[in-house]
């Protein structure tokens, strides 16, 4: 099938289907470029022409994934994920040319949200989908959340969150088990806390640890809903809640689920994961809600900012008093 396309008001073509894909992959045309082929009543944007079942449309077999560069659908075996986005092997030549010319991976620019890879786990496979999602969220949160699905149910992101946080939590529990006697021997530990833990561990023994491990998913689930709810309220207060609560929860799940694996690193893992999680969360919310980075930072930090401001005021007052006292002495 031969295509014609519009460029600067001039009709170009005819070109074959493969050439059209190459132009799309290299960024010469986009899915909003007007195209026409035999059988079409009128010129239409390429994305619409391919999706609407017109003459140029493809019938999409179930499970096939849409290539970010060409906008066409391919079986999962012909898809590779680059920067968290699916690209087809067919687009390789165009991708290379696009990177050489523009320095960045080409995008159809239609803003379609299908990611992250965990959303395509049925096609990609369970473990590859987890790995690709973690990698994309941690290493390139901006690109990943530009294409994150804003809706589609809570089960998928919650499953990801609970699974990864459970693994991280179990690792934390194992480390705590190994150091519990050091923990209890710490003189700074409040006596009532020491007593409570000693009673639990002495009376419960293995039951206490197994119970904690089994109850972890429930704690994680509750914590996720509560924190996402607080985060969404913060976004509303900061005029940043441009999307629904579902978008906030999905964003939170993908970020915090991905950083949970840092807990596997002994001692400092949880702190590193926590800090990087907050940074990623700010970038992610800015992309998924379509707000500025500053507004996202405000919303993420608002729940803790009140305390930080309080501490700042306290130390400010102390320093102020100290300086004024010095002034009196001099």
């Amino acid at each position, binding site marked *: 099938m031969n295509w014609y396309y519009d460029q600067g008001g001039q009709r170009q073509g005819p070109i074959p289907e493969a050439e059209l894909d190459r132009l799309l992959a290299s960024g010469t045309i986009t899915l909003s470029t007007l195209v026409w082929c035999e059988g079409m009543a009128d010129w239409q944007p390429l994305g619409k022409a391919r999706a609407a079942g017109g003459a140029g449309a493809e019938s999409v077999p179930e499970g096939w994934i849409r290539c970010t560069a060409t906008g066409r659908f391919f079986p999962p075996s012909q898809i590779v994920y680059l920067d968290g986005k699916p690209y087809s092997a067919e687009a390789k030549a165009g991708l290379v040319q696009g990177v050489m010319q523009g320095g960045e991976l080409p995008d159809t620019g239609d803003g379609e949200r299908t990611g992250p890879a965990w959303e395509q786990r049925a096609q990609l496979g369970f473990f590859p989908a987890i790995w690709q999602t973690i990698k994309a969220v941690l290493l390139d949160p901006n690109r990943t959340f530009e294409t994150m699905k804003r809706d589609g149910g809570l089960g998928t992101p919650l499953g990801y969150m609970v699974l990864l946080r459970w693994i991280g939590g179990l690792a934390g529990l194992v480390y705590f088990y190994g150091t519990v006697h050091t923990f209890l021997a710490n003189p700074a530990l409040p006596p*009532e806390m020491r007593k409570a833990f000693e009673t639990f561990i002495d009376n419960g023994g293995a039951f206490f640890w197994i119970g904690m491990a089994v109850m972890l998913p429930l704690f994680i689930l509750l914590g996720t809903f509560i924190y996402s709810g607080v985060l969404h309220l913060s976004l509303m207060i900061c005029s940043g809640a441009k999307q*629904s609560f579902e978008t906030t929860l999905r964003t939170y799940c993908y970020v915090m689920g991905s950083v949970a694996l840092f807990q596997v690193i002994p001692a400092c893992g949880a702190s590193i994961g926590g800090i990087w999680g907050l940074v990623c969360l700010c970038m992610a919310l800015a992309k998924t809600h379509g707000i500025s980075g500053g507004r996202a930072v405000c919303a993420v930090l608002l729940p803790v900012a*009140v305390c930080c401001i309080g501490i700042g005021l306290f130390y400010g007052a102390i320093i102020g008093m100290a300086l004024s006292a010095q002034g009196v002495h001099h």
Partner: protein
Amino acid sequence: MIWRRLRPGETDHEAIWLGVSLASLALAWLWLRSGLPLPACPLHELTGCACPTCGATRCLRFALGGDFGAAFAINPLAFCAFVAMALYDLYAATVLALRLPRLRGEEWPAWAGKSARIAAIATIAANWAWLVWRGV
């Protein structure tokens, strides 16, 4: 605000928040019953000054014990939040059990949204000032 049926695929907030609040209440009850200590407030530990949520646990304890006056005095905003949660749970349980239409907010005009934000910040600040003044 309007009453309407859930759209296909729409988040069922009533089911989610009823479940979350009941499960949280059950866990809090188990925690308190088992004698586990409550985590200390870092701001209070460091400065001796209450944070905006200080006294919320004591407020819940008083409220569950039926001493609503003391519960209100210890943290008025937390008490109002618990009452609001109880009312919401009642509403959620009713609409879920009877399969009734849900209450949903329409798009707010800009001035209403701004007023609500300012009111929320002012309420949190006033409540915090009360907690600091009372030395909770």
